[in-house]
């Protein structure tokens, strides 16, 4: 399983900070979404300060930070959405 990867998608401010729109994380075993974020920030330290503003989404659904990511999963950290004034 050493080549099993998780695809991390970066959008909007995260994409702009990272200068790219996808990152592959190689996992030896399933890891929490929070653990994946830490691994991501090791590769792209500029993202570290943004954790409190993003919501994790696993396979296109919002999930809690404790959710387990499996190899082959699609992971994204959703920056604040357009929302705006009501």
């Amino acid at each position, binding site marked *: 399983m050493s080549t099993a990867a998780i695809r991390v*998608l970066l*959008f*909007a*401010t995260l*994409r*702009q900070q990272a200068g790219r729109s996808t990152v592959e994380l190689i996992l030896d075993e399933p890891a929490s979404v929070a653990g994946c974020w830490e691994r991501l920030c090791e590769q792209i330290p500029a993202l570290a300060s943004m954790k409190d503003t993003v919501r994790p*989404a696993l396979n*296109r*659904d*919002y999930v809690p930070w404790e959710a387990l990511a499996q190899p082959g999963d699609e992971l*994204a950290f*959703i*920056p604040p*959405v*357009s*929302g*705006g004034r*009501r």
Partner: protein
Amino acid sequence: MPAVVVGPQEIDLEAMRRMVDLRGMGAVATFVGVVRDPDEGVEVSHLDYEAYTEMAVSEITAIVGEATARQGVGEVLVQHRTGRVGRGVASVAVVASAAHRHQALDACTYVIDELKRRAPIWKVGG
């Protein structure tokens, strides 16, 4: 055309409304968000929208399901544009039919509010 569209194509509100089945319905409410110019006094020529398209479709489809589960609501259609949208042009549209007027207006409000809260779509700087 599916009930939820996220992509660069222009919004044709008339076509959306024609798609809605009106059998048993007495009300159709529509919401359109347009690129605002001026915005708080600042001139705006366009906005650029970026989406996590697959998740946005899935999230908006869930929201539409929540809205149509409400009493009296018939059909709900949603379209959100991605890419560049010029000032005064529609970036998002919601069409909701219902038996009675408040059901249609409330469904429309629910969908646009939840979309703005949950759909992974962003305004991005040039």
